[in-house]
């Protein structure tokens, strides 16, 4: 048994080695093509993902990772329940927009405004997700399609609102006014990383506990694995669907609020759409096969390759398009490697059951 396990670990290590060798090989080829020094580019990549003066680049990675991981956690709740909610982007935008507008118009002490705005953002995100759920349950529009389609109206509505009625005219941009400075999330002392990541960490923790240890999470997962089964054993499938979507949307809304209060301090047109937080969140979840504890790590991974690639582009003379290609190559190889490992480990688990 022991040797079996050791050889499995060894096999795993070897296949990771092979994947890394592939990545390195392809990247080396690319670098050679554009005449960029490989070693320098590689160290620039790592330096810019995790290093910097006073770890400032690591902070940038973490700040990005927070938003990606937040979206990943939101998506994970849906996906594990078998709900193909790819409307995270719309829910994120709804959250960000409502957070900014609420903070601009709510009276009261800053802490109250902050709290109420975050709550409002979560409600808005949940509402937008519920809309997709209701479309499915009552109007027969499949969730996959409905949630995807709903991304567009909210994006343009938000764009219109900050381009016209709520625009900060003096700024010359399509953006709302700055939210009151007292509501900004503070930075960790000595860094430029805002404490928004704590909100995301809390949400992740909630999601992990929810998925593994709660009755509701268990029921949602059963529904995800087999809706027919869930119906047959009498799980409240419709209610589960709506509740899960609401939860998922609320977390997306929270992410929007964190982006507003922590990073941009206002709603800027496109600030939540262009960086593809929602899509990156989706692939972060899928990369690790929806295993809850691995989802935040996966978010960090994607953030790191994004900031690393951007940094490499800045300092090693690697053109931006090569940095893009490089990201794609890394994702492709890592994705296939991780999926393989997951399949292998689930087979081991299933096979090893007898002996245990």
């Amino acid at each position, binding site marked *: *048994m022991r040797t079996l396990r050791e050889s499995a670990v060894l096999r795993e290590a070897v296949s990771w080695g092979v994947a890394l060798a592939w990545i390195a090989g392809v990247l080396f080829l690319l670098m050679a093509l554009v005449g960029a020094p490989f070693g320098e580019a590689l160290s620039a990549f790592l330096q810019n993902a995790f290093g910097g003066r006073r770890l400032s680049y690591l902070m940038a990675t973490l700040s990005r990772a927070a938003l990606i991981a937040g979206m990943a956690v939101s998506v994970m709740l849906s996906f594990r329940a078998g709900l193909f909610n790819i409307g995270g982007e719309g829910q994120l935008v709804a959250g960000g927009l409502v957070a900014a507008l609420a903070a601009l118009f709510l009276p009261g002490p800053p802490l109250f405004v902050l709290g109420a705005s975050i709550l409002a953002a979560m409600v808005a995100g949940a509402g937008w997700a519920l809309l997709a759920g209701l479309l499915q349950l009552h109007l027969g529009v499949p969730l996959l399609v409905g949630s995807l389609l709903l991304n567009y109206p909210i994006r343009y509505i938000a764009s219109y609102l900050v381009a016209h009625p709520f625009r900060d005219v003096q700024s010359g941009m399509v953006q709302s006014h700055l939210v009151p400075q007292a509501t900004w999330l503070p930075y960790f002392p000595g860094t430029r990383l805002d404490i928004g990541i704590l909100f995301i960490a809390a949400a992740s923790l909630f999601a992990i506990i929810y998925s593994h*240890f*709660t*009755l*509701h999470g*268990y*029921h949602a*997962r*059963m529904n995800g*694995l*087999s809706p*027919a*089964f*869930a*119906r*047959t*054993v*009498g*799980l*409240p499938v419709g209610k589960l669907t709506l509740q899960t979507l609401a939860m998922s949307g609320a977390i997306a809304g929270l992410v929007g609020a964190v982006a507003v209060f922590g990073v941009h301090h206002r709603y800027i047109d496109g600030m939540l759409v262009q960086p593809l937080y929602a899509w990156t969140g989706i692939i972060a979840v899928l990369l690790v096969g929806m295993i809850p504890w691995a989802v935040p790590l996966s978010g960090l991974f994607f953030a790191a390759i994004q900031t690393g690639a951007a940094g490499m582009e800045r300092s090693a003379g690697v053109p931006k398009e090569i940095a893009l290609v490089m990201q794609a190559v890394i994702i492709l190889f890592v994705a296939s490697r991780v999926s393989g490992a997951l399949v292998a480990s*689930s*087979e*081991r*688990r*299933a*096979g*090893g*059951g*007898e*002996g*245990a």
Partner: protein
Amino acid sequence: MPMRVALCGITVRFGALTAVEDVSLAIEPGEVHAVVGENGAGKTTLMNVLFGLVAPQAGAIRLDGQDRRWTSPQDAIRHGLGMVHQHFMLQESMSVLENIVLCAEPAGRFGLVDFSAARSRLRRIAEQHGISLALDRPVARLSVGERQVVEVLKMLYRQAEVLILDEPTSVLTPQEKDRLFATLRSFRTAGKAIVLITHKLDEVMELADRVSVMRAGRLVWSGRLSQTSKEEIARGIVGGALPPARQRAVRTPGEPVLAVRDLEVAGRSGAVGPLSLRVHAGEIVGIAGVAGNGQGELIQAITGLAPALSGEIALCGRPVTHLDVERRRRLGMSYIPEDRQRMGLALGATVSENANAGRDDRRAFTRGPFLDRAAMARFASGLIERFRIRVGGPSALAATMSGGNKQKLVVGRELARNTPLVIAENPTWGVDIGAIDFIHGELMRMRDEGHAVLLVSTELDEVMALSDRILVMYAGAIAGEVAGTEADRETIGRMMTSRAHQALPEVA
């Protein structure tokens, strides 16, 4: 050309589990070779090896004395092997014809499939073997029995020389079974080799020339049927003495637990109903009938999985017509669905997760909103022990269990709820003799303890063995009622099939 197939020293392991261990077996042309054994004994796995679906860790396949290695079923098919799988391999959205030609399409110009050629060839084959089936119906609308016919036709169409049938009869009506057996006999006469996996020893006695008995992955006995007896085979399967025959205790039924009045449900072909029936405490009411005559729709309406168009359903005296599944179950209903793969279990979840789903006593395995995993595992272990489920443990994935063990898990979970009403739909489908006996025993025990049991089965013997009253369904209505003690095959068979041959559509 007749062909001799031999399996030599086959061993298959799934992780730490040895599913087949050093099995050698010869399949002769012109013979029906029955393979029997308990659930999980490794029958399907062994045949999957022969058919190229599973690569063995050791051993060889020999055709006419030559060693072969299959890289995929395509090799096996090319060499004249055909297999009807235990779980159907059909495309629901496609028509019967499309399903049959799939993977063996007679292609004409530009690779377009020559359906008319296939159609005429099929018509010949069907006539030859006395099979009738509408070729243009989508498989989604076929009953399980009809789907089985499609699978057999598929094999016929491919002109297989060695036919492997994995539990082909478990869903057939007696008539359908007789027709299949007639076909198999004509194959035997034509010199083809047939492997028949079944749990029904009567069928073995009726048709087989040679019998192989497997237990726990090993071949325990193999030889000509004439050299053995039914009792000996049965003892070989269970590995010991046979359970004694069951005695039915006389019991007067109590209050009605389930009352259905003028129920109408939307069905696959037109509305089902109006139906009225009652099931009392302490009785088993059996519903017999050819699959696809509305039994499924009736059960769906009673369980709440499909809405009733009209009529009323009452459970324990409470109207439940407009309640959802969950509330009906809480009021006192358990349900063993026919389709264990899809409805009975979540295959991707663990045994424990499957065992605890739908429990009413949530307090027993939760603390507030949180799960008590240990309590869940204890509960699952209890079921595994009580229902003798052969599986690694509560944390094994449900997908890795053999068909019979899956069924036992579903039955165990539902019966453990101890509700006034138990609905069982083909509860012993594909289950070995030991388990059949066990499940029957459990259903009888429920009855004796005063539960009401509604049993739907296409297996006439099963209905007759268990029921206090038998309702026969035909064309969406109840065609007649017989008391269990007075039931005989002739009467019931007439009721369920009197006009059934007219109902089967002709070959298009």
